[in-house]
């Protein structure tokens, strides 16, 4: 009887599929962008951030972050105002910059410094 059991055991061990590889898999597709290092925009600002147009009083424009190769890359934007205070208000929502001119004096001394920052994406698992 015990030899019969051993024979059955051996047959099962070598049966087709008994040792077959049962592999499961999972995948995540990942997109890789270049690190944001520069900003392209259609705002009325010169290369130093000085305002070039004083009308209309509220201007919206689009910001685009570029990587070192000049390719678009996702980013967040920070707008910092330098110079006389209370002349301009700058707000950024997503990739839109809104410039509100609050006074007509002292505007030439105002500089709007735009800086790109990398996006911190939420993890897919919510962590």
């Amino acid at each position, binding site marked *: 009887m015990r030899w019969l059991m051993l024979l059955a055991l051996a047959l099962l061990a070598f049966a087709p599929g008994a040792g077959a590889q049962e592999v499961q898999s999972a995948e995540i597709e990942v997109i890789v962008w*270049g690190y944001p290092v520069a900003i392209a925009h259609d705002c009325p600002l010169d290369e130093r951030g000085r305002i070039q147009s004083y009308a209309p009083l509220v201007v919206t424009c689009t910001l685009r972050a570029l990587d070192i190769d000049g390719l678009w890359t996702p980013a967040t934007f920070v707008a910092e105002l330098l110079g006389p205070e209370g002349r301009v208000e700058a707000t950024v929502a997503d990739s839109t910059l809104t410039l509100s001119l609050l006074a007509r004096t002292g505007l030439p001394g105002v500089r709007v410094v735009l800086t790109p920052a990398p996006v911190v994406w939420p993890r897919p698992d919510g962590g």
Partner: protein
Amino acid sequence: MNWRWVVAAFLAAFAVGAMTAAAMGQEVIQDSVTVTVLERPEIVVLQGPDRAYRGDRLTYMARALDPDGNPTLAFLVWSVSDTSVAQIVSVTDSTATVEARAVGTFVVRVEVGPLDSLRVGFAGDDGTFAWEGEIQIEADSLIYAEPWEEGGGGPFPFQEYLKAYGLLYIQACALFYSGDQPWGFSSHEICYPAYAGTFGAPDAPAGPLYRLAVYGAREALSGGGLTLLAALIRSSPPVDRVALRRMLL
């Protein structure tokens, strides 16, 4: 659950008891062996980022689950679809760290299989090396993505090497000799206790050895040849000794 394994485990328990009794030459009135039958992993969960900037190091975690929530044991095999965009830089038992090296898209993939399906030439879990015997490996006979050149050619193209042989993954732990100089070749931490003397100096890694996927291989290969003394190799899909020898020679 594969029914064959359940039946096989039951019969194995019976057979062990029967053989023990026979060996001792005594009548057994009552005997029992406890066998833990593990479910084969049927679900794999992969977590990690799907967006990155060039230069980022991304950590992915995978878990093998049994659909009924029962314990399981699995071996993770990691790969990336395009090694020109991203490369795996380190792995642990449950995670892989991938470095995004270029702008583009890649797929990080993990495969989970039961341990026994991925084991080749391995006698047990005690760290012993099952394959012992000298195989001389000439540097020129190894497959490279680009011809080896002194001072150039880049690091050992491990992923390309695997791809050339249709392998998804190989864990190699081996002791080579190049001339009189021993060289360890390791892609897994299990190598460490077996050959601590070799792997421990002079450039011992701070952490587990798997952080160094190829340890000293470049220097050893530049010496003109290697002698493989012993190896422990796991791969996916499994390769037999003959196929492995064909790969190396």
